[in-house]
C-alpha cells in the first residue's frame, strides 16, 4: 500500500481547514442532502464529504458509511487532495497503490473510488466529495462533469457559511 504523501503546504492547508470550523461539527441538512443526491445519481452505495485532517479523514456528511472517520494513512481522499482534477481508481484490486489497502481488503471492501478535490479560492485543498463502490466502475465524460458540478455546489455551500478569508495564499 502506498501511504499518501503530505502536500508541500500542509501546515497552512490545515490552518485553512480549521478556519472553516467544520471539523467535528454536527451533521447539516444542506450537506446531507447533497451527498444523498449524489448517491442516487451515481447509484453508488457510499458517498462522502470528507475533510482531510492531520491524522485522519473526517466525514462531515456521509451515505453508506458507518464510521465517521478513518486514518489518513489509508485514506484515498488524502491522495485526491494532491491534485486539481478528479482522482479516479476504477478498480482498486488492479492498482498496486491500493490493492492491499485495509479499506479494500476489509470493510467496506472498496473496489471503486472517484474523488473531486474541494479546493478553496486560496488554493488549499481541504477534502473531497467522493464516490465509493464495492464493484469496479468507469465514469464517462458526463459522469465526470456531474461529479465536478456537485463538488462545485458543495464548495459553494462551504464558502457560503464561511465569511472569513479562506486562509491566505498556498
Amino acid at each position, binding site marked *: 500500500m502506498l501511504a499518501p504523501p503530505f502536500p508541500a503546504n500542509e501546515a497552512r492547508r490545515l490552518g485553512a481547514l480549521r478556519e472553516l470550523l467544520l471539523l467535528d461539527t454536527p451533521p447539516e441538512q444542506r450537506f446531507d*442532502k*447533497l451527498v444523498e*443526491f449524489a448517491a*442516487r*445519481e451515481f447509484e453508488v452505495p457510499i458517498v462522502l464529504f470528507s475533510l482531510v485532517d492531520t491524522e485522519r479523514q473526517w466525514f462531515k456528511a456521509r451515505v453508506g458509511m458507518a464510521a465517521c472517520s478513518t486514518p489518513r494513512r489509508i485514506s484515498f481522499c488524502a491522495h485526491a487532495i494532491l491534485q486539481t482534477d478528479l482522482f479516479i481508481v476504477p478498480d482498486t484490486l488492479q492498482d498496486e497503490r491500493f490493492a492491499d489497502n485495509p479499506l479494500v481488503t476489509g470493510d467496506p471492501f472498496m473496489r471503486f473510488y472517484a474523488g473531486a478535490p474541494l479546493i478553496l479560492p486560496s488554493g488549499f485543498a481541504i477534502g473531497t466529495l467522493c464516490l465509493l463502490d464495492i464493484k469496479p466502475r468507469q465514469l464517462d*465524460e*458526463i*459522469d465526470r*462533469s*456531474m461529479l*465536478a*458540478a*456537485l463538488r*462545485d*455546489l458543495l464548495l459553494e455551500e462551504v464558502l457560503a457559511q464561511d465569511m472569513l478569508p479562506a486562509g491566505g495564499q498556498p
Partner: protein
Amino acid sequence: MSARLPDLLLVEPEALLRRTIALTARSAHLASVTEAASIDAARSLLGTRRFDGAFIALDLDASHADGGPLGLLELLRDARTGSDTAMPVAVMLERCDAGLLASLKQFGVSKVILKPFRARIVIDAIAELGRPVRTAQG
C-alpha cells in the same frame, strides 16, 4: 459557418437538481443552460431572451395565474416570445395520462420525463436535443 452551443431554458423548482443539470450541461459543453426556478421566472426570461429549446417541469396541481399548467407551452407555440415557435420542448411531470399526453403532443412536446428522475436522464436528453447550432458569421 461556426457552431455554438444551443441556448436552453430549464424550468425546475428543485434547486439542487436544477443547478446540477445546468452546471453539468455547461461543463460537458452540451448546452448553455439558463435556469428558472418557476413558471413566472420562465415567462420573464422568454420575454427577453431567445432560446433554442426548453426543459420545463410542470406542476399539474399548482394554480397558475396565466393559462394553467400548460399556459407556458401555449405562450411558446403562439409566437408570443422571441424564440422559434417550433423549438424542441421537453416536459418533466409527476404523472401523465392519455388525455394529458394528447395535449402535450398538440403542443409539440418532444419528450416527457416522469418524476422522480435522475439528473442524468435530463442531461442525456439535453445532449440529444442540444446538438451544436450552426450559425452563419461574417
